């Protein structure tokens, strides 16, 4: 099976190392993975703002780019949720139906399709505060939600990270309360959004994690921005980076040097090494 890697626009621009980690991880697992170069974005930022008309061309382009693949993997619960459940701006077409049916978040692909549970190469001797996005929890059912009190408790991201030697989780309050990112909400309601981010960080902080990990980089972009403003230098990692293997306190990474020192996470590593 050939898998197409979809790298969300914000990861392409701001967090290329997350795309690299995803690619390397899939390659490490023996997946035949390609990156269709004409890809841009799924159109979520526009559709999420009510601007369906303005999302149409982008969505149709997205469907065309991935038309020939029967498996598309992306390291983003939010984009997966949008494509699977909200992809209504463009015209209906076989290409679109194909993409809607065949798009997986990286966590789903690893957990449900490949059924991988062990990541022996990815030793990570650190305490992790795991944040799972609302799209992943309530949109994709990647973890049980606190509202459904009788459901069995589970978390696919946690199940995967549990296979990383040395990794420990910390428990914190309001674990599945929204972090406040919410797409364009982050700017249309910036005061509430930032307060939610600050609150999320303070709940995590009380549990003394070494780092914050999520399978959604957009939540982390927001939380990292809040943390930096508060002069907190706690590192943030996408789940793909952890599963692929990173050694944050040594300044080493599987992905080489292209991004180290560019991103904030890189800077904090340099400072701590």
């Amino acid at each position, binding site marked *: 099976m050939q898998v197409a890697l979809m790298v969300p*626009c914000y990861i*392409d*621009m*701001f*967090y*290329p190392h997350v795309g690299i980690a995803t690619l390397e991880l899939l390659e490490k697992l023996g997946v035949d*993975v*390609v*990156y*269709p*170069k*004409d890809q*841009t*974005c799924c*159109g979520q930022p*526009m559709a*999420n*703002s*009510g*601007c*369906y*008309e*303005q*999302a*149409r*061309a*982008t969505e149709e382009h997205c469907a065309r*780019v991935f038309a020939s693949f029967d498996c598309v993997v992306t390291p983003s619960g939010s984009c997966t949720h949008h494509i699977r459940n909200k992809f209504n701006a463009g015209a209906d077409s076989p290409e679109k139906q194909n993409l809607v049916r065949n798009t997986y978040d990286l966590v789903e692909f690893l957990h449900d399709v490949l059924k991988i549970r062990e990541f022996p190469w990815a030793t990570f001797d650190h305490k992790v505060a795991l944040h799972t996005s*609302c799209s992943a*929890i*309530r949109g994709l059912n990647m973890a049980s*939600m*606190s*509202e*459904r*009190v009788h459901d069995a408790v589970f978390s696919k991201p946690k199940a995967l990270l549990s296979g990383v030697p040395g990794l420990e989780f910390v428990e914190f309050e*309001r674990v599945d*309360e*929204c972090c406040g990112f*919410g*797409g*364009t*909400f982050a*700017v*249309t*309601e910036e*005061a*509430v959004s*930032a*307060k939610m981010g600050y609150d999320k960080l303070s709940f995590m902080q009380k549990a003394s994690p070494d780092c914050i990990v999520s399978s959604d980089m957009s939540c982390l972009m*927001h939380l*990292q*921005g*809040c943390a*930096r*403003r508060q002069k907190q230098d706690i590192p943030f990692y996408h789940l793909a980076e952890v599963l692929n293997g990173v050694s944050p306190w040594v300044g080493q990474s599987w992905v080489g040097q*292209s*991004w180290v020192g*560019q*991103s904030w996470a890189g800077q904090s590593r340099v400072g701590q090494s």
Partner: protein
Amino acid sequence: MSRPVDQAKNAETFLADTVHEQRLDQLLWAARMRRDAAARQVPEWEELRTLASEIKEHTLSNLSDYMIQFEARATANGVIVHWARDAHEHNQIVYDILAEQEIKLLIKSKSMLTEECELRPFLERRGIRVTETDLGERIQQLDNQPPAHITGPAIHKTNHDVAVLFSQKYGSDPKNEDTAYLAGVMRENTRPDILIARAGMTGANFVVAETGAIVVATNEGNADLSANTPPLHICSVGIEKIIPTTESLAVFIRLLARSATGDAITQYTSTFRGPRKGASMHVILVDNGRSARLGMKRFWRSLKCIRCAACMNTCPVYRRSGGLSYGSTYMGPIGIIMMPTFEIRKYSELPFASTLNGSCTNVCPVKIDIHEQIYGWREVMEENDQIQVVKKEAMRVADKVLSHPALYQIATTTLSSALEVLPHFAIYNRLNAWGKHRDVPEASSETFHAWYRNHRPKTNEEVRRG
């Protein structure tokens, strides 16, 4: 046409007052936790939610039949039933009933419908004094504020706020912030009105078609005082509150208080079937936009709401914005999807006061897909040209760039131009809204796209395309 309520700006003001913001967040989160604990005690909780949702769907689908059945039963019970098309008709009916008996004082228990209809100012302008008998509602009345929460109207106020308010209005001790003392002050000042008023008014949580009964759930017993003390009881109720039978009532009673406060049942659940001997009872069935909403394919389901406020308590945005920030009768997630049906322009910004996190939908005891409807309303606002031109233009530019790979590549090649595109959605309405409380992410010196080109020169894809 009214200008749109700027919920974001109001929320920012509320947030600046950290004492009130933190207290509201903690109080309501505690209510959410109690709701979870209460739901855990009921093994069939999810089945109950489904059943309640289906009963509402059935009733709303056969609304006219049930309304006619209710009218017949209630009339047979000696109740005088009125029909009000809109808020004005409703207010006029109440006024006419009172004016006929030259009544100048009305005592009243909490009713969101009468807030919706703006009954109090209507009557006050016509020389009728209205005394709210619900503690929270009375506090809001004295402070000249609308309710900030549908079950706890003054939930945003601290004991200190109330002590100061009561000292100004009632001359009580401003330093005494003891809850029992403050409740006592309120009681001393409203009980005399309850004793002398010749008319009392209540809302209703449920209306039972089969028996012609109205059902009111309170924790203070004030609805009973308002209904039972004066010789005239007027009950206003929205037409969506009708349920078929007493048996179905049991389903809702089990869900209501558990969802609202985590209690198994409210302190008082009172059924009024007809007038007491020598007294009279009126029920006003109010439409005020409800039948129009029932006809909205995408949005009729909000009529299932039983006003428990569980969606507000769980909403991370509501808890940090305060109920008054919505500038509307109904607030929080359920308010967002109801209010635009009353006035689309005024409430056009409300659907954006949500992260679409979905918690509301999953606590709703009647399973309204609240966050999906919020998403749907955003689209409606776009269709109705209620989205700011500058924002729409930013989205149009984004679509152009993001649907053309070549433009996208150019735009994202350099660090500075990457920032131009992505958070450009971000900067459309205020100068760098992202950066006010957060640092802006640093664009990488190399996009993933560029990295891939350099590190995977001959890709599988190219090989395959040959």
